[in-house]
């Protein structure tokens, strides 16, 4: 009797592991949050809002339109790379993963990602249709390792109400500086007339922001941040010029120094400063504030790429991409992945409603994208955006160290020379150990 019971239980347990249908299953792992309670069954993408709502609805729509394919979604906490790494080490990675372009080289160098040209070809997607920034972001040694989905990077979010009070508006547009000297002149004028800091800086627990400023303005001066893939060089005259600039600005009280990201966001939304340099992902929230009567940002918001202060007008950017971890797959699964790529490419505009810049040049140029709030202003990011070289590994860890040292320079905890020399030493030491 006991044996029979055990046999039935074993059969039930094994049976529950098998797929209960004849669909082709694709296992997708993503960040962007969990919102199944609100968007779990929805397929109308035009009514979805925010990163989570839009991506959830898009996957629902794909499943509904492709009855022979089932995309099973696993939502992980942002950014989810430790989990992905563990899955890859266990040789059981997902079929599709959302990945930041700066992280792709870590996995691609180990042969853990498939180059995606065969999928793009099957999906009828031409890499020449991507914006230059998106194309660069997924390219490693001449191969494409992901379907780029957007470009994101630093932007100057401006409180136009305070700019007006400071006398820094012309023709309804804020006047942004075009040189370091003008930047200081504007910042001083702003503080004198409004009594508030010109720049809201998030320097506590947020190394990415400080690193973004350093990368952007070193790139603008034509200084190679990585002369070789395993050698960082920021302690240069160009790097020190940028660090000294922000250090002087902070020392004069023209920029804040004690805020973390939530505090900086709250300060900007409450009208406590002129400019908040942060990413594309904040456009939606700030725009909503600017459309809500009674809020400090009401009718007082505009956003632009980082101003052109030195050399060439460029901006350090990254991007989100869909990547395909290397593993055995059936041809049906490969076909399903290609169909998913085609679907996501066709819905690139929907994703752009999050605030990120589309990966396809035609979508950036399209009237409906340009008609979205602020998008005309940020569209140049697709052409002025620059990524770190695709051969540079551990970009996320590098950004953490560079940002930490740059923050120390900005707040005066270290001299610019020492902070940037420490960044070079710390990064180069661990890059030299790469397998």
């Amino acid at each position, binding site marked *: 009797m006991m044996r029979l019971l055990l046999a039935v239980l074993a059969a039930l347990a094994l049976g529950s592991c098998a797929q209960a249908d004849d669909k082709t299953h694709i296992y997708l792992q993503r960040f962007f949050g969990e919102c199944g309670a609100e968007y779990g069954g929805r397929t109308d993408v035009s009514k979805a809002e925010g990163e989570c709502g839009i991506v959830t609805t898009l996957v629902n729509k794909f499943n509904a339109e492709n009855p022979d394919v089932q995309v099973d979604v696993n939502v992980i906490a942002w950014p989810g*790379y*430790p989990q992905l*790494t563990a899955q*890859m*080490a266990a040789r059981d990675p997902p079929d599709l993963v959302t990945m930041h372009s700066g992280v792709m080289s*870590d996995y691609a160098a*180990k042969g*853990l990602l498939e180059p995606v040209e065969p999928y793009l070809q099957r999906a009828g997607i031409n890499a020449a249709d991507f914006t230059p920034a998106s194309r660069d972001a997924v390219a490693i040694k001449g191969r494409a390792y992901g379907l780029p989905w957007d470009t994101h990077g630093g932007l100057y979010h401006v409180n136009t109400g305070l700019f007006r009070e400071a006398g820094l508006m012309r023709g309804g547009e804020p006047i942004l500086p075009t040189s370091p000297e003008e930047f200081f002149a504007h910042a001083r004028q702003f503080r004198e007339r409004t009594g508030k800091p010109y720049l809201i800086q998030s*320097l*506590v*627990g*947020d*190394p990415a922001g400080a690193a973004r400023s350093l990368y952007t303005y070193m790139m603008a001066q034509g200084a190679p941040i990585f002369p070789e893939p395993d050698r960082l060089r920021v302690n240069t005259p160009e790097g020190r010029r940028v660090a000294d600039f922000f250090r002087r600005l902070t020392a004069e009280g023209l920029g*804040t*120094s*004690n*805020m*973390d990201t*939530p*505090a900086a966001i*709250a*300060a900007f939304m409450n009208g*406590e400063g002129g400019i908040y340099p942060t990413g594309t992902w904040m456009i939606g929230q700030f725009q909503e504030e600017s459309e809500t009567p009674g809020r400090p940002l009401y009718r007082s918001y505009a956003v632009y790429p980082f101003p052109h202060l030195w050399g060439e007008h460029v901006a350090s950017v990254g991007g989100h991409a869909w990547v395909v971890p290397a593993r055995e797959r059936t041809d049906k699964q490969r076909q399903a992945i290609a169909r998913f790529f085609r679907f996501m490419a066709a819905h690139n505009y929907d994703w752009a409603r999050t605030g990120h810049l589309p990966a396809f040049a035609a979508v950036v140029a399209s009237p409906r994208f340009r008609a979205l709030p602020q998008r005309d202003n940020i569209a140049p990011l697709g052409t002025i955006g620059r990524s770190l070289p695709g051969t540079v590994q*551990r970009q*996320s*860890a590098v950004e*953490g160290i560079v940002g*930490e*040292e740059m*923050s*120390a320079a900005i*707040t005066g*905890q*270290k001299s610019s020379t020492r*902070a940037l020399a420490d960044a070079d030493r*710390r990064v180069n030491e*661990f890059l030299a*150990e*790469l*397998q």
Partner: protein
Amino acid sequence: MTRAERRWDGLLFVAPFLLLYLLILIYPLLRGVWLSLHSVDLFGDGRFVGLANYARLAADPVFGQSLVNTFLITLMIVPVLTVIALALALALNRATRSAAILRGVFFSSAVLSVTIVTLIWRFVLAPDAGLLGELWTAFGWEPLPFLSAPNLVLPALAITTIWWSLGFPMLLFLAGLQQIPQDMYEAAALDRASKWTTFRRVTLPSLRRTTILVIMLQTAAQLQIFGQSQLLTAGGPSGASRTAVLFLFETAFGRWELGYASAAAEILFLIILAVTLTQYWLTGRAREGEDGR
């Protein structure tokens, strides 16, 4: 049944535990030591480098700073936590309804996850919109930048941790207090001993073993402090709040340097072992001839 047979029977009883213990504790420990002698990332087999990782650690100022930070924060937390937990236990060791409610209130922070705890304390400590910042401003003072000033950030993390960790030591002290025989207090009362003398001569000596336990457990726990530092300050400003475990995490999962992180973990393990054994030895010497509870 012979004596030898009885011994085998006993071994069989403990075998499942021993097997699991070897598998999930001893094997990873030895594997960690082996990894620390290699230059290896999360995927490769790596190469044997002997003690090179340890030599690199000895010359790494970031690791050195993380160890100093870890010692400092442990010193800030453990004595204060022990004294406050003891004081609360003394105050709440009574069979009244309000004491029962307050015991629950003071223990409640211990059930929160570190994410929630750091979120709460961020709202308290942030200088621009935090509770303390508002309070300081109301008094006309400049708010203190607890999370961005190098000399304030460790005390800020210590306060957060003390608030979070108070519950368990308080319960241990309460359990210890309830085991002290009432007749000792009656004898002290007959001798007309003052409250202070009773506390010093009866309560404290009777709680000696509980106190040692609390100090040892808390020391071992705080030497491994991680979440508060990662979530509140990300180790900043400029590494002023980077703890040893945060260094391990960044090295292993940010930089994928598994061998180097394992070497740092072994050093931390030896430090915790040495500190705990030293405390045990010192308290053992002091206890000679006494019998505590």
